[in-house]
C-alpha cells in the first residue's frame, strides 16, 4: 500500500488530462505555426486551453502566455519588470518566496538591483506594515507569493497589490500553489503578472503560464520565433498546453467541492496528529491557509527520520529541512518565521489533493503516531 502526501511538490496528472494529451503525442504531431493543415488544426485545442485558463483566472485570453512552468513565468515577470522600468532600481519581495523567485532576485541583485524582503510573523503571515515601509517610488516590482508552499499560509493579495500600485510599482505574484486550490481572480487581487504551474494542479510537468495584464509591455525572456505574439519563442508544447487546459477545466469545475473536501481532510488529519502525537503542533494554524497543506512540528524528532520511516511504510511526505533536499541548514521559510533551528528540523509537510483517498488517510493515521513514538523513544530530547 502506498499513500501520496506530497501534493505541494507535484500532483498526479488527471486521467482526463492524460487522455486529452495523447492524440498530440501521437497522430496530431503538426507544428501549429506551420502553413499546412497538419499544424493549423492544432490551433483550436491550444486556444481552448488559453480560454480555460483565462476563464479560471478571470482574465482575457490575450493576457495568458504559455511557458515551460512556474519558474520560467516568475523569471519572465521579475527580469522583465526591471527592464520595463529602467528608472527604478528596487524590488520588494516577501522573505518566504520560492527559489523560483529568490534566485532571479539574487541574479538581479548581482546586476545592481536592490532587493528588500518583507518579513513574516511566527504564524507565517506577511507583515504588511513592514512591507509598506519598504516601498518607495524607486520600487519597480513587488513580488509576493499568493500561498506559501511549506506552510500553506495565504497572503492578502489585494492589500499587497494596493501598496505596490500606490508607489507606481508593478505587482507580480507566484500563485503556483494557489491556482486550482483556492479561487484566484486576477482583477480582484490586482495582479499585474501571475505565475501558474500545470503540474501543481494535476496537469503535466514542464508546462506553465503567465498572466500579463493587458497594456503591460513585458519584454520576452526567451527570444526566437514569433510564438505567443513574440513574447515567448519556441515551438508550442501542444500536448502540454492541452493537458494544462484540461487540468484547468477540471479544477474550475471541482474547486468548490474539492475545497470543502480538502478542508475537512485537513481538519481530520490535524486532529489525528494533535491527538495521537504528543508534543506536536501545526505551523501557521493562526493564519488563513490552503485547504490541502499541513506543516506539523513533532518536538524532539528529526523530520527526515520521520520521512524515511513513513517512506518505508509506503507513505510519501516531505519537509523543508536540510538533509532531504541536500541543502545545508533548515528552510528559509522557517527561519523567516523565527522558529528555532530545533523546531525547524522537526517540521514535516503533509500535503494532499483531489485524488487523496480515505484509504491514504487511514494509512497515514496508522503509521504516523507510531513513527513519532518510536523516534521519540530514541531521542535525547524526548
Amino acid at each position: 500500500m502506498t499513500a501520496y502526501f506530497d501534493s505541494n511538490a507535484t500532483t498526479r496528472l488527471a486521467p482526463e488530462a492524460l487522455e486529452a494529451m495523447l492524440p498530440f503525442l501521437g497522430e496530431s504531431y503538426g507544428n501549429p505555426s506551420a502553413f499546412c493543415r497538419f499544424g493549423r488544426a492544432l490551433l483550436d485545442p491550444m486556444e481552448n486551453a488559453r480560454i480555460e485558463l483565462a476563464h479560471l483566472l478571470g482574465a482575457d485570453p490575450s493576457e495568458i502566455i504559455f511557458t515551460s512552468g512556474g519558474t520560467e513565468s516568475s523569471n519572465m515577470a521579475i527580469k522583465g519588470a526591471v527592464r520595463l522600468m529602467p528608472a527604478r532600481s528596487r524590488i520588494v519581495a516577501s522573505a518566504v518566496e520560492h527559489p523560483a523567485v529568490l534566485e532571479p532576485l539574487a541574479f538581479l541583485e548581482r546586476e545592481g538591483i536592490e532587493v528588500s524582503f518583507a518579513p513574516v510573523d511566527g504564524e507565517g503571515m506577511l507583515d504588511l506594515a513592514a512591507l509598506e515601509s519598504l516601498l518607495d517610488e524607486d520600487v519597480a516590482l513587488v513580488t509576493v507569493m499568493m500561498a506559501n508552499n511549506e506552510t500553506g499560509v495565504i497572503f492578502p493579495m489585494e492589500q499587497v497589490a494596493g501598496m505596490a500600485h500606490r508607489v507606481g510599482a508593478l505587482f507580480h505574484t507566484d500563485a503556483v500553489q494557489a491556482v486550482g486550490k483556492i479561487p484566484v481572480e486576477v482583477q480582484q487581487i490586482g495582479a499585474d503578472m501571475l505565475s501558474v504551474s500545470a503540474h501543481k494542479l494535476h496537469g503535466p510537468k514542464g508546462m506553465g503560464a503567465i498572466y500579463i495584464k493587458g497594456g503591460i509591455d513585458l519584454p520576452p525572456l526567451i527570444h526566437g520565433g514569433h510564438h505567443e505574439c513574440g513574447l515567448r519563442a519556441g515551438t508550442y508544447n501542444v500536448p502540454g498546453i492541452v493537458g494544462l487546459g484540461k487540468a484547468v477545466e477540471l479544477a474550475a469545475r471541482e474547486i468548490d467541492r474539492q475545497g470543502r473536501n480538502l478542508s475537512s481532510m485537513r481538519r481530520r488529519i490535524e486532529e489525528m496528529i494533535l491527538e495521537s502525537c504528543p508534543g506536536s503542533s501545526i505551523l501557521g494554524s493562526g493564519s488563513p491557509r490552503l485547504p490541502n497543506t499541513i506543516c506539523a512540528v513533532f518536538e524532539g524528532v528529526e523530520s527526515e527520520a520521520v520521512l524515511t520511516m513513513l517512506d518505508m511504510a509506503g507513505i510519501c511526505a516531505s519537509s523543508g529541512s536540510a538533509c532531504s533536499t541536500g541543502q545545508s541548514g533548515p528552510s528559509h521559510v522557517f527561519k523567516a518565521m523565527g522558529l528555532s533551528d530545533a523546531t525547524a528540523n522537526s517540521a514535516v509537510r503533509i500535503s494532499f489533493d483531489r485524488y487523496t483517498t480515505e484509504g491514504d488517510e487511514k494509512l497515514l493515521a496508522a503509521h504516523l503516531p507510531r513513527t513519532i513514538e518510536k523516534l521519540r523513544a530514541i531521542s535525547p530530547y524526548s
Partner: protein
Amino acid sequence: MWNYSQTLLDHFTNPRNVGSLDNPDGHAEVGSSECGDAMQLDIRVDADDRIEEALFMTFGCASAIASASALTEMVKGRTLAEAESLGNGQIVEYLGGMPEEKIHCSVMGSEALRRAIADFRSRRDRVRQAIASLPPELSRALEGCSLPLERAGATRVELVCGGEGHPPVEELEQYLADRAGHPVKVGFSV
C-alpha cells in the same frame, strides 16, 4: 529519498542499545538539535579497560540513528584501545555503505565515542587522584585494607581488607564522590 542499504534500514528501524546509563563511566553529547543531528553516548568500562556496555540516544536522520546503533554494537566487549582505533569508515562499512552526503552522520558516531572515552579517562583520573591523596583520618580508618589504584575505575573501586573490623565504606564513597564530582561505588571484599 536516499538509497539506504538493508543493514542501515534495519539499524534505523530496530536500533540496538538505545538508552542511557545511571552514573555512566563515560558520557558524551555531540551535535545539537540546532544542527539537525545530536547524539548522546554512555559507556560502562570494566577494570580491564573493556567496554561492557554502550547505550545511545539520537536526534537525527536514519543514517545518524543507524550509525549510533552500529557504533554501540561494534564497541561492546572491545578494549578502549580497540575501540579508539575504530574510524567512521568502519561504521559505514558495517552498515553496508551510506550515501556520500550522509557520511557526516557516521563521523558524529566516532566523535561521540572518542569523547565518551576521554570523559571516562578524566573521571577515572579524578577518582585515582582522590585515592592517592586520602585524608589522614580516612587513611587511618582504612589501615589493613588496600585500594589497588590500577583497578580503580571511574565509578567503581575495589577495597580489599584483612578481615577484622568494619572499614568506613560509606565515608570513603562520600569522599570519592565529593572529589570526583560523581557517585563512586566501593566494592568491599575480604
